């Protein structure tokens, strides 16, 4: 469970002080599926970085599963990122030299896990890339690259998956593929998912939408997930949509 209390973040830009976040109170419960929306400069990414333990707030208390993150040292924070969190980025951030298996296995190397290849292959199968295991990023489409990145984020069995505009670099169709994977991960595996987006049809997959403006929360609404938000192409009949969910379900049963 994520609990933010009075979180503020200020930057100094020369003589100016920029308030990226102002007194944020936010609770994200286990198993939630939520989107953070807001215009550019509203502090979405800063909030994401703080939740992701990549950044520290200027003031306020951040508790992750009951632990006050401010008390953790750099090495412990790295450990939290490695074991509890998964990250997906807008620009995928794959390493150009590695094939899909090595990309996905990489986070596991930082906890000295065994059978990393096996776990990586399992994660890649989960996102539907079982046939692209030995491909380099240059040999993969944008959607496939993002699926490799998702596999990398979930390979370590995190409780929370964080994404910063995960569909920002993808076309509508692959965006929905990615959201289908997210939904399946949330429903089948109970992974808490929070992501930043400014696309309403992507946010529509979630059950909660938090809106930010000028570093403050201006809206926190429950949402009824709609899976047919692309006009004229309901996801239920989409050739790929659903299949990820089925694949995940099958994986979970197996």
């Amino acid at each position, binding site marked *: 469970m994520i609990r933010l209390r009075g979180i503020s973040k200020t930057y100094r830009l020369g003589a100016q002080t920029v308030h990226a976040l102002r007194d944020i109170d936010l609770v994200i419960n286990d198993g939630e599926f939520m989107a953070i929306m807001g215009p550019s400069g509203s502090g979405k990414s800063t909030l994401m*970085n703080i939740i*992701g333990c*990549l*950044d520290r707030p200027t003031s306020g208390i951040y508790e992750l599963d009951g632990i006050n993150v401010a008390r953790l040292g*750099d*090495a412990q924070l*790295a*450990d939290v*990122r*490695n*074991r509890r969190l998964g*990250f997906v*980025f807008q620009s995928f*951030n794959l*390493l*150009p*030299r*590695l094939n899909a298996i090595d990309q996905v296995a*990489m*986070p596991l*190397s*930082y*906890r*000295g896990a065994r059978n990393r290849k096996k776990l990586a292959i399992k994660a890649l199968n989960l996102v539907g890339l079982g046939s692209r295991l030995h491909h380099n990023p240059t040999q993969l489409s944008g959607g496939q690259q993002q699926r490799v990145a998702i596999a*990398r984020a979930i390979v*370590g069995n995190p409780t929370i998956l964080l994404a910063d505009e995960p569909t920002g670099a993808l076309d509508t169709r692959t965006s929905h593929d990615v959201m289908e994977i997210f939904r399946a991960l949330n429903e089948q595996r109970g992974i808490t998912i929070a992501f930043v987006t400014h696309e309403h049809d992507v946010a529509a997959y979630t059950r909660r939408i938090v809106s930010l403006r000028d570093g403050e929360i201006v809206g926190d609404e429950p949402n009824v997930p709609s899976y047919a938000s692309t006009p004229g192409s309901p996801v239920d009949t989409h050739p790929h949509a659903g299949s990820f969910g089925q694949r995940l379900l099958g994986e979970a049963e197996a």
Partner: protein
Amino acid sequence: MNLTDVIVTSLVALRSNFMRTVLSMLGVIISIAAVITLTAAGSGAQQGVASRIKGLGSNLLFVNPYSATPPGGIAAVLGSGGGTLYYEDEQAIRSANIPGIDETAAQTTTGGAGSLLQVQAISHGVNSSTLLVGAEPSYQYVRDFYVASGRFISQDDLDKKSLSVVLGAEVADNLFGDTNPIGNTIRVFAGVSRQFGVTFSFTVVGVMERKGVTPTGDPDNQIFVPLTTYQTRVPLIRNPRGYTNVTQISIKLTNGSKEQSVKAAVTDVLRRQHSIVNDDDFKVQSQSDVLSTATSVDRTLQVLLVSIAIIALVVGGIGIMNIMLVSVTERTREIGLRQAVGAKTRDILGQFLAEAVTLSLAGGAAGVATGVAVSFLISYFANWSTVVSITAIVSGFVFSGLVGVFFGYYPARKAAFMDPIEALRYE
């Protein structure tokens, strides 16, 4: 991250930019190769010196005139070191019956580099600049240097002060080529210049075996005449007893004799002979003394060359640091990502340090291989024996590794302490 992961990761990173990797290793490769080659050539030369000095004859002592104050006047001009050693000294050493002495041989030597007095052997208009040695029959045995054909100077030659000459192999080649020189007459000129000198005619009675160049001279470029003939015919330095100066007495020791005690006994005899109270006017040196003098020169040169190689290694290290800094900057996003997925500071530090060390160790390995290959080529083509020592190889590796750690640390630190957010945002 365990060690295997770190190494594999760094190898993948280095392989992805192969050309740059090789170029950045070049400095280390060259300097390690230079160290290996230079030390190999150096110890080869040292070993050569050692074996050649032993080739002078086993267990030798040399007595030479020596003056703490440099000689002046004609002695300086003649380069005879003051001329304070006499044929009588050899007789005294012999009659003292010092245990451990097998045989002695006195000789006079004229000409050669460093001497104003030049000697020419002349036959049928061919001139050969050479060294004139007045020798005793015992010379062959003492110096372990024998005639190849004909005969050496005999006691009869000595008694009759005969005009016989034995040619060094080189001199024989120069004057006679393929024809047999024995029985021929050669002229020997000794003097400062064409106008100022003397010429004698000698009959060739023998030709010496070929020995090869030694650090102390070229034994093949000498001609030998009876010591007595030399002393009467080339009367250059007169002493109170007449013309009995010699320039060196060689003493062959019996097997297993104590070099130091013989040295002391010889010194005693000569001191008495010369009525010396304070400073000796002679010097008794063993082969190992000569050896250490000869090799100390080599060692100085070697130290110099190795220090140059170390400077090259440092320059190579700077090259590695430079390329690592470029690499860290290029891979800023990768560093940010690794931090985001859980890499600790020490993981990143270790990764880049491992890359630098891999780079420098690979350079070291390539350098060792190159050095060994070049050493082999030198001994194969230049006929200069080389000895590649394990010490040189091991220290080559160790030093290149140290260079990697030393020059890789700063770039690795820079990578490890990056701010993950800024690193991820880096374009």
